[in-house]
């Protein structure tokens, strides 16, 4: 948290976001609804700062960098204000998590099985010509199943590999949305060409990883 608040190292925001994702997976293991929306809210205000950290770092010499940096400063201001507000939602979330009861092992195992089934259902949509939204759905459920497994002390290489492949696709999809779809990077911009050709490659890589490993992670 102090690193995220100081803003000198992008890793701070990234780690808080990962932590929020892990806590959401923990709630999912216990089939708990309360605090879920608060963690989603936290990820929503961390996300744009993280995305912009990554884009700014990758395109330091781009002519449109100042526009991204302006947005980054604004989003960071909003984020820091929310994290520092002692009477606000983040303070309430931390206070509630601090006193939360552990989830019983049996319930957590049942919760993990539920996460696996949800991933399997999302994976069925990848047959044929899956759109980006279907791929994102699988990515989110992969993340939850992986984090849920790790809460139960299970580390799975296949889940990590799949999450990496789908995460790489997501990173480029975000870059596309922010730079290409928004019009910031015009036609002919080298970054734009690289993103557009990269999207197809990463999509293929994610689908290949799923065809190789998906049956294994989706099976009980």
């Amino acid at each position, binding site marked *: 948290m102090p690193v995220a608040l100081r803003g000198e190292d992008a890793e701070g925001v990234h780690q808080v976001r990962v932590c929020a994702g892990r806590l959401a997976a923990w709630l999912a293991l216990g089939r*708990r*609804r*309360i*605090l*879920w*929306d*608060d963690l989603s*809210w936290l990820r929503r205000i961390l996300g744009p700062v993280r995305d912009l950290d990554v884009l700014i770092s990758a395109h330091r010499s781009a002519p449109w960098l100042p526009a991204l940096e302006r947005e980054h400063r604004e989003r960071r201001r909003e984020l820091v204000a929310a994290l520092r507000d*002692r*009477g*606000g*939602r983040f*303070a*309430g*979330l931390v*206070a*509630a998590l*601090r*006193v*939360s*009861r552990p989830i019983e092992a049996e319930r957590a195992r049942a919760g993990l099985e539920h996460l696996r089934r949800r991933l399997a259902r999302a994976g069925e949509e990848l047959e044929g010509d899956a759109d980006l939204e279907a791929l994102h759905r699988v990515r989110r459920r992969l993340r939850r199943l992986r984090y849920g497994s790790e809460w139960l002390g299970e580390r799975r290489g296949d889940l990590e590999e799949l999450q990496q492949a789908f995460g790489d696709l997501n990173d480029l999809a975000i870059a596309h949305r922010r730079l290409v779809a928004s019009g910031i990077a015009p036609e002919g911009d080298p970054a734009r060409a690289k993103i557009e050709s990269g999207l197809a490659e990463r999509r293929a890589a994610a689908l290949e990883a799923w065809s190789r490993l998906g049956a294994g992670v989706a099976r009980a």
Partner: protein
Amino acid sequence: MIVELYVVRHAVAEPAGPGQDDAARPLTADGAREFARAVAGLATLGVRLDLLLHSPALRAVETAELLVPLLERDGETRVTPSLARAPSPELLLEIARGRVALVGHEPWLGELALSLCLGWDPAGGGDGRPIALGKGSVAWLSGEPRAGAMSLRALWPSRALRAVGKRAR
């Protein structure tokens, strides 16, 4: 904007153990069971929620979790420290839409209800008494969420809600 407000006192909780943080007190098993039956009574009465606000204390979190079946599909839950202290203008700003439940603690919920219905200010002295809410009980208010602008539609003790839920089965 007209809001249907359900002011809910948390269900029966364990007493604090020696040195235990008051905020860490969980519901008793009976308290949780009884409140789940009270929620069935609220469902029978047609209560649905768009927004569920709750204090961060464990007994409020666990009470709120039991109210989740009343939440609309696109409903939202939100933790707010404003429900762990005396009523404030900040709390009223959070009561944004439609059908809202507040899960918190006495005497603050009673003070809030009296302020919203009669404009009573707990800091202003006088001989006003807050509306007393038993554990697991619900006060239903309707109107604009500002001092003196809401009406008390019903005060449902937990026992009555359990009876309504039982009769419906």
